[in-house]
């Protein structure tokens, strides 16, 4: 992406996010928009790992959950200030991701999928089981997000915070993708040995992007713990991980704006089609299969390619 189109994209996103609340009739819709922002932030990070670096993770909800529970537990049981708890959660998740990344990311394809899936499931089992700390299946409440005497209240406040964070995440992610670091990530996706022989330490870059995407998920999780009235383990389970991956692949792998579109679409879908509530897994599974079979590049890159072809 050239410098110009990156600023155009960011500008368009900023205008859209700024105008959106005017179009939302009531707080129910604002709530959906906030949830979409949460998912979009995680997906922009996850897309760095899956879409750009080509390393699949089927356990990212685990990192989201760890961040969320770190915040909830530290604030609720130990009285930490929310911001400090958020940073502590990010540090814990970052260190954990760093520790497991090197051995795990040596694996490729199915093995990597299985290992990340295993990590995610183990995290979710621990959260479910250690009820003394986490509240078990009933969950835990972290209370409102406050910094000093300032307290974040109401959907609209949350919306501005999350929209701002989404914009910042997108800015950072597109910067990274378009730098020597990002090129190294995309290169190791294309051919690891090809990247190695021109000096790319592929193992190091894989670890780096894994940690970055895990920390982004953790920070989003920490904030989510304060946003949701009651944090439950389902937010950290295998299906949440799959949902996140589906958002990324549906919107378009290796497309930051695709990740946002995917997250927004799949967050809205169950809300819009409430009649189909029972059919959610069928629809989710169908979207995963259909996207991969009929437009493996995902929605946004496929549409972009159509436009480019039409232009002479």
């Amino acid at each position: 992406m050239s410098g110009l189109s990156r600023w155009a994209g960011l500008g368009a996103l900023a205008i859209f996010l700024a105008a959106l609340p005017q179009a939302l009739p009531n707080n129910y819709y604002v709530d959906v928009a906030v949830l979409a922002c949460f998912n979009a932030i995680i997906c922009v990070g996850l897309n760095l790992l899956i879409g750009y670096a080509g390393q699949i993770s089927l356990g990212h909800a685990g990192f989201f959950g760890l961040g969320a529970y770190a915040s909830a537990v530290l604030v609720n049981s130990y009285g930490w200030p929310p911001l400090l708890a958020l940073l502590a959660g990010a540090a814990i998740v970052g260190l954990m991701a760093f520790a497991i990344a090197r051995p795990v990311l040596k694996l490729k394809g199915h093995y990597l999928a299985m290992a990340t899936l295993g990590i995610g499931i183990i995290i979710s089992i621990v959260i479910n089981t250690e009820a003394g700390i986490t509240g078990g299946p009933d969950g835990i409440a972290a209370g409102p997000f406050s910094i000093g005497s300032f307290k974040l209240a109401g959907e609209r406040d949350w919306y501005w915070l999350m929209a701002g964070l989404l914009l910042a995440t997108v800015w950072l992610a597109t910067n990274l993708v378009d730098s020597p670091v990002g090129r190294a990530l995309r290169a190791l996706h294309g051919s690891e040995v090809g990247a190695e022989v021109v000096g790319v330490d592929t193992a190091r870059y894989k670890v780096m992007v894994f940690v970055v995407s895990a920390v982004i998920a953790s920070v989003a999780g920490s904030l989510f713990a304060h946003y949701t009235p009651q944090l439950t383990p389902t937010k950290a389970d295998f299906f949440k991980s799959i949902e996140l991956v589906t958002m990324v692949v549906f919107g378009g792998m290796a497309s930051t704006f695709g990740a946002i579109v995917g997250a927004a679409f799949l967050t809205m879908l169950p809300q819009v089609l409430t009649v189909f509530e029972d059919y959610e897994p069928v629809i989710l599974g169908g979207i995963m299969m259909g996207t991969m079979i009929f437009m493996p590049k995902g929605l946004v890159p496929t549409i972009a390619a159509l436009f480019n072809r039409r232009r002479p």
Partner: protein
Amino acid sequence: MLSAFLQFLISGVTVGAIYALCGLGFSIIYNASHVINFAQGEFIMIGAMTAVSLVEAGVPMPLAILLAILVTMAVGVLLEKLAVEPARKASVTTLIIITIGASIFLRGLAQEVWDKNFHKMDPFSGDTPINLFGAVLMPQTLWVLGTALLVILLLAWFFNRTLEGKAMLATSFNPLAAQLMGINTKRVLMLSFGLSAALGAVGGIVITPITFTAYDNGIMLGLKGFSAAVLGGLGNGFGAVAGGLIVGIAEAMAAGYLSSAYKDAVAFVIILLVLVFLPNGLFGRKGTERV
């Protein structure tokens, strides 16, 4: 003391036999296509749920079982035709997402076709327990072990003695050469899905009188079957059986001696350790990547 250990061992071997069948299903498809079918566990669920509902509808049990296996095989073949074959040339990540999508799709469909409740099937030959050195052995356990053994022997015979089986083996070693020798590799792919589906269904049906079944049973069973296959070395039939038994026994021991809540975590801890320290599994061949 000994009787408790024996009890855990029995339950471990029983569930391990199902993981073994499931792991074999993974291996058969992997050998035929280098696809990991994350929907393998759904075959177990579909087989079991179909059999249960047919029996409930009054179909005699042997016929219900046979029909359930056939239905599951049809699902397997359809899955291959509609979802896997159109994306044969796609990347590994793409195929992983397709088969996971299929798994969630089938699970959701099962929730619609049936319901969200647990279902139960009567044991094949009564439920008078057999006392074995102080441990309790249910007759159905013998059915599970006997069926698993029979299926494994049948598979061995199929792959080593029949033309069809040899064609499948040949395809796994070198698909291009196999194709040039006149083997219809597309047919082999289809057959592998049918066969794997049948294995899953059989496993699901024989274990249901012991463990119950529900629409969301497949995923965990499937993932543990995959753990078994990787533990034994992906694509290695003997390894899948050994891996299944190891995972099953480790799980039962952990549940018995440590904590039943962490039972499900055992398979995943094992698989992580194996992947990191023994990436080719216990019995896998070591490969060098060609560049």
